[in-house]
């Protein structure tokens, strides 16, 4: 299969700004162009927009506002893993020969309709994500004898790491006590256990192997892709203490890249809520079932930024359609050794884990320099 690489990127600061979705899309696209002096508008064959926003025809709108007349233009929506799914669509166009250069642009507003899956009536009146997160947390704590105090390390670590990310929503570090004493949303979830909806945009430029080199001296290659959707409804999950779709997607991604989890130097995992980080690490194979918090505690106490160096979703904020792209940009920067204070030393192989709707769908990417 021909190689597909990441040739450039652009990202906005994540905020609570009341900006129009079109403006957020345009801002990150402008930054991408600013970062790509050799990129001309005519180079772009496809423009794919990733968002849960209800506005229509956004890829054509972004194209017009950016002066691009692409062959292919459309949106991708799949709740929280829209971003990586849009990247996989771009990859597919390039590897199929339908496009040579694809602009993928993700954006969301703080008030995104993508937070609630109205269709999933098996959740009854408990449709807000805090309820599936509470069920996951309760189930995980019981099965592996983990406490709220232990899980609180996740937001403490990720807010700490996000202080080195100039685009992060979080501007504060928190102590374990701050997390434990933050507003109790349910018996099993506190405010600081949650990633926060926000306004933000992230754009990435994908290109075929030869074309990539026109735009950058340090292309990052997408060498592994794994995707799995087990259901749409939260209650269909087989277990509530692990992520089945993640485990399957990771197996596919490692198989495609001919790598395994021990090769991974740095990873962005989908910590929508505290409990998601240990669960994701276990389902991706970084550690045994129930041992995720041991790994996270060790990373935190040694100031090792291997997992969620930009601060994850909890530290950076979660503009739904932009998240998977922002995660991929972070791993790109890590592999290009341009992540400044967040840099994981000598990172050669990276992983992105992006999931939707209580892990009913997962996308895993393996990236290499």
């Amino acid at each position, binding site marked *: 299969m021909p190689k597909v690489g990441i040739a450039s990127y652009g990202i906005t600061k994540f905020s609570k700004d009341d900006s129009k979705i079109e403006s957020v899309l345009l801002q990150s696209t402008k930054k991408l162009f600013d970062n790509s002096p050799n990129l001309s508008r005519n180079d772009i064959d496809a423009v794919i927009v990733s968002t849960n926003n209800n506005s229509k025809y956004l890829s054509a709108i972004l194209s017009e506002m950016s002066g691009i007349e692409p062959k292919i233009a459309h949106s991708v929506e799949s709740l929280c893993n829209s971003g990586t799914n849009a990247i996989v669509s771009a990859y597919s166009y390039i590897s199929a020969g339908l496009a040579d250069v694809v602009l993928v642009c993700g954006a969301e507003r703080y008030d995104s309709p993508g937070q609630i899956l109205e269709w999933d009536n098996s959740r*009854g*009146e408990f449709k807000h994500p805090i309820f599936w997160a509470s069920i996951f947390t309760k189930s995980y704590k019981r099965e592996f004898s983990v406490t709220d105090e232990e899980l609180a390390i996740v937001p403490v670590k990720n807010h700490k790491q996000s202080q080195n990310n100039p685009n992060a929503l979080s501007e504060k570090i928190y102590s374990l006590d701050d997390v434990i004493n933050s507003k109790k949303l*349910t018996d*099993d*979830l506190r405010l600081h256990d949650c990633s926060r909806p926000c306004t933000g945009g992230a754009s990435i430029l994908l290109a075929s192997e030869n074309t990539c080199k026109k735009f950058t001296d340090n292309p990052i290659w997408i060498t592994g892709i794994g995707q799995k959707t087990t259901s749409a409804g939260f209650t269909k999950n087989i277990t509530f203490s692990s992520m089945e779709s993640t485990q399957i997607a990771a197996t596919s991604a490692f198989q495609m890249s001919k790598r395994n989890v021990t090769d991974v130097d740095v990873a962005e995992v989908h910590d929508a809520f505290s409990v998601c980080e240990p669960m994701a690490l276990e389902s991706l194979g970084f550690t045994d079932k129930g041992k995720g918090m041991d790994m996270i505690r060790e990373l935190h106490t040694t100031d090792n930024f291997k997992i969620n160096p930009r601060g994850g979703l909890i530290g950076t904020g979660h503009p739904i359609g932009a998240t998977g792209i922002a995660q991929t940009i972070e791993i790109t920067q890590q592999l290009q050794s341009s992540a400044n204070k967040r840099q994981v030393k000598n990172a050669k192989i990276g992983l992105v884990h992006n999931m939707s709707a209580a892990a009913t769908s997962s996308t895993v990417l393996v990236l290499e320099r």
Partner: protein
Amino acid sequence: MNFDSELEKGNFIIAECIHCKKIVWPPSEFCNKCFREVSWRKGSHEGKIIEFSRQNDAYFCLVEIENNIRIMGKISKGIPITGQQVKIEKCGVKDKSYNFEISLM
């Protein structure tokens, strides 16, 4: 029959595929295995608690009915435990969302 309109009247009905001998959940007019039309029957109101948590003073739980259907509902009174037998006390539709009130047995 229609699941939503029956639930609005407080009736919990179940879609079943006679051909595949399986319950179809979430409720649908077609079997998700063979696409034949489902038949409807009165559902059991009894199930067991898979998991639960609490918001303010109200417990909410994930309940499994007929070893298949899983729904989330509010527990009317008492302190739940996992695996506990429960029944649907009341059901309906409110603000376009299904609504289940669960009581401990």
